[in-house]
């Protein structure tokens, strides 16, 4: 296999470009999208690369069609992705729920821009955290990853595909205009350095009868592929283990939804990922994710220089959420701060996790610019005075 970009080598590329290349290395061969700033470069790269790797990149009529096409491609056996931002992400919410309900592996990239509505199209924000987790209606769970660097955007795209395939679920890569548009040095591994995950397929007629049944006891049913020999019925209606609509039976609905939620929540330890810096003796704990985590890291270094015992918890996954981890950290901290580019979203999850064991403050910034390290330092020093 020849790749249309350097592998086993470093390159100097934008976050959006890194996401496209990583997707192709992860085995993605179907992309459907609709152009939108600041995610368009992903689509541009996919349009350039896909024909060269025998893949498909298609412009749909809108974002609703884009995610619908991706769901269809996934059922046809392809690893598939779409990418969008703000208004497009809102349009995708209904079919995101369809992907959850039909347990369709896919990767949805949201390069966040400042909203609501058309907002500030070229500027970064982190205002879609709650929407990524809870934007589609009904009880559900899914996975949300948050890269802070171009290298992480690359690595987490590969991980997003692996998690989508492993748990048969949509995975959201929640990044932003800063990461999407900045250029950094990125190492793209050789394909043989990569560990790639592929969805479980039914191995016989018997297994294929239960595309929505927990036939292996791991909560993740094997997924039949259209055109590969089995008759399968896929519906967004509540369905039994065979996929047949059962829309009024409470026990069928409860069993299905609880399994779909449990396959994510019960595997929290496998899915959750975070990094800590100077946390062991920290009295002041900063919690951050994505682009803001970089400023928070610098802020912790500055605070330490001034003798203030600060530490950082950088979340690489914001859902499933490790409430227990937050409580454990809160027990040893005097004060916690969530720094994010919104009016307080992750803040609410952290507050719930802290469970009153530490005070939780919000360091909020909106308008398109990332917090400077100095702003974070000043705010914390002010509070300590």
């Amino acid at each position: 296999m020849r790749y249309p970009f350097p592998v086993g080598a470093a390159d100097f590329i934008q976050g959006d470009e890194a996401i496209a290349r990583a997707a192709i290395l992860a085995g993605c061969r179907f992309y459907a999208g609709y152009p939108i700033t600041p995610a368009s470069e992903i689509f541009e790269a996919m349009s350039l690369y896909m024909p060269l790797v025998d893949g498909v990149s298609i412009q749909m009529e809108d974002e609703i069609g884009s995610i619908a096409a991706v769901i269809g491609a996934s059922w046809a056996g392809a690893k598939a992705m779409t990418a969008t931002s703000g208004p497009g992400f809102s349009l995708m919410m209904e079919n995101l729920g369809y992907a959850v309900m039909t347990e369709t592996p896919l990767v949805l990239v949201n390069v966040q821009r400042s909203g609501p509505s058309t907002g500030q199209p070229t500027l970064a924000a982190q205002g879609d955290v709650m929407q990524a987790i809870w934007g589609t209606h009904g009880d559900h769970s899914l996975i949300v990853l948050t890269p802070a660097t171009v290298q992480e955007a690359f690595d987490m795209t590969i991980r997003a595909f692996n998690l989508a395939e492993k748990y048969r679920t949509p995975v959201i890569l929640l990044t932003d205009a800063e990461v999407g548009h900045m250029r950094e040095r990125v190492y793209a591994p050789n394909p043989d350095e990569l560990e790639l995950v592929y969805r479980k397929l039914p191995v016989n007629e018997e297994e294929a009868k239960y595309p929505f049944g927990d036939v292996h006891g791991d909560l993740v049913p094997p997924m039949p592929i259209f055109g590969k020999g089995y008759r399968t019925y896929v519906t967004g209606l509540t369905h039994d283990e065979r996929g047949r609509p059962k829309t009024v039976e409470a026990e069928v609905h409860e069993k299905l939804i609880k399994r779909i939620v449990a396959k994510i929540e019960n595997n929290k330890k496998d899915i959750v990922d975070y990094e800590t810096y100077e946390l062991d003796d920290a009295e002041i704990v900063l919690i951050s994710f994505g682009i803001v985590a970089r400023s928070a890291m610098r802020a912790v270094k500055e605070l330490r220089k001034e003798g203030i015992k600060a530490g950082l918890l950088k979340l690489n996954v914001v859902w499933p959420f490790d409430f227990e981890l937050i409580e454990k950290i809160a027990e040893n901290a005097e004060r916690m701060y969530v720094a994010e580019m919104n009016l307080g979203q992750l803040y609410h999850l952290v507050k719930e996790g802290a469970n009153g064991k530490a005070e939780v403050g919000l360091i909020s910034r909106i308008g398109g610019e990332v917090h400077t390290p100095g702003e974070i330092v000043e705010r914390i020093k002010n509070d300590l005075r």
Partner: protein
Amino acid sequence: MQIRLAGIGGQGVVLAGIILGEAAAIEGLNVIQTQDYGSQSRGGHSIADLIISKEPIYDLMVTKADILVALAQLGYNSTKDSLREDGLLIIDTDLVKPDREYIGAPFTRLAEEKTGLALTVNMVALGYLVAKTNIVKKESVEKAIKRRVPKGTEEINLKAFRIGYEEGLR
């Protein structure tokens, strides 16, 4: 090392920044490049920021530039406060009237007279910058130019870069 390149749209400031960043990446250095420009395709301000380091980089934007390269007065005016007091100012001496110490050359005029194309001003300035500072090796930049400029324009861009480099050595 924080470097800021400032000019007006159409001068190729962002491309020069990308090429300098790519050269640093080729040498195995960590580098981050961001940009800021007006929505006009020509005439608005245009800024390319680079942070180059052997250590991991957390900073996102240039806060206190070690080097500022200004190719137009508008770019200079909007960025001069971000240059450190002991920082290095490099200017196009025909187009920028600075209010502090500087070095420089008439980059646009050099580009026009020696390559026949004023558009190569970005490469002339980049050559001058590299000769004066040795942030990256000349060869790394030349490799980056070959990778990044539009096909068919490699030679004229390399020529412009070398003209600026020679000027910087004088």
